[in-house]
């Protein structure tokens, strides 16, 4: 039975492809593929049809399908182009086979359906797999990228390191930040770490909890943590939420935090020559002339 259907379809492939392309074209208007140039759309459709027929002829060879999916993914076409296309092919082919047959009863009808499904399903499976595979790949790459920019640790001067935090902090990220922070303290041999939260949009109980934990862990390994960059609205929420940061050294700005870090490490900033002195010298020089 099935081989008979295969014969009908393969022998009339030209007609079927024409019907199919007509169907596909009508989809293009309402579809996401609207921006694609007609000629590219046409040639891809033809290639798609060729792939389907190769698969039918070889009874499920996937090499061609794989190649085609790779190309479509590279072009960035939506998955729905493929699923819609195959649905359309299913409709067109079923209609065509039925129109070629004289006697149609329920058995026959179900045979036709199952044959057509048998052709289409492996292709759908393969294409959807390839697509989701490429998505997952992108997702994991992005996750790695996100981790990389998660929390840089910047040693500014012997014994003092700054960690600027940017973006929302969730539990997963908080753990990464804490690990990075502690390892960085050891690596740079820092006595003081300034955690700058200017770039953190919201500090809720959870974020505060993680920050406190990080500060405690830093204390355990033998360094000191200063929280800087606390904006007025953050100070308000912290107090309103009843979060106790009293054990935590905090400063409103990085500048103030850095000054207090210098104090802790027994250092001060000395201007080598004050501005007034410079001006005086200059005047002196001019008078000498």
């Amino acid at each position, binding site marked *: 039975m099935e081989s008979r259907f295969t014969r009908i379809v393969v022998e009339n492939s030209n007609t079927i492809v024409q019907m199919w392309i007509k169907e596909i074209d009508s989809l293009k208007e309402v579809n996401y593929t609207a921006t694609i140039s007609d000629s590219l759309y046409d040639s891809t459709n033809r290639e798609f049809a060729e792939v389907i027929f190769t698969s039918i002829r070889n009874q499920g060879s996937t090499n061609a399908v794989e190649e085609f999916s790779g190309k479509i993914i590279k072009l960035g076409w939506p998955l729905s182009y493929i699923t819609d296309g195959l649905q359309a092919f299913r409709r067109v082919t079923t209609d065509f086979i039925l129109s070629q047959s004289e006697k149609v009863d329920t058995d026959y009808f179900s045979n036709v359906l199952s044959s057509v499904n048998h052709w289409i399903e492996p292709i759908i499976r393969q294409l959807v797999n390839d697509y989701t595979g490429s998505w997952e790949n992108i997702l994991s790459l992005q996750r790695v990228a996100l981790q990389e920019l998660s929390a840089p640790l910047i040693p500014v001067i012997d014994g003092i390191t700054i960690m600027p935090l940017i973006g929302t902090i969730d539990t997963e990220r908080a753990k990464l930040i*804490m*690990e990075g922070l*502690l390892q960085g303290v*050891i690596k740079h041999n*820092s006595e003081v770490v300034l955690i700058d939260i200017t770039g953190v949009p919201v500090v809720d109980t959870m974020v505060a909890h993680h920050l406190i*934990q990080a500060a405690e*862990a830093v204390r*355990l390994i*033998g*360094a000191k943590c200063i929280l800087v960059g606390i904006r007025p609205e953050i100070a308000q929420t912290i107090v309103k939420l009843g979060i106790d940061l009293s054990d935590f050294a905090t400063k409103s700005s990085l500048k103030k935090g850095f000054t207090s870090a210098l104090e802790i490490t027994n250092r001060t900033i000395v201007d080598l020559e004050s501005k007034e002195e410079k001006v005086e010298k200059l005047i002196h020089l001019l008078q000498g002339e």
Partner: protein
Amino acid sequence: MPIPILKLHNYLLISIQTEIDDQTAIEFQEDLLDKIHKTGASGVVIDLTSVDIIDSFIAKVLGDVVAMSDLMGAKVVLTGIQPAVAMTLIELGIHLQNILTALDLEQGLIKLHQELGV
């Protein structure tokens, strides 16, 4: 194997190098207090660089030893606590409040120096 306790001027230096079981920890606590009593040491540095696990029991022994030494007039600084150990302790809910810490032995000695004001 008991944990060796070294004397340097009026400081005692301890580097814990092995996996500590409960018994060793308890013995160490006794040994250290004994040594503080005998030498009249005013400062102690316990270096934990090679310790890769501190559970609640060992943490308690360490916390106790610090409090006990303090009673006997010796300040204790814990040095070289590994990041992984610090994080695990915090997550366990053990904060070791009121304990002096330093990054390494050298910094620990400096800290003792500052604390004791000599």
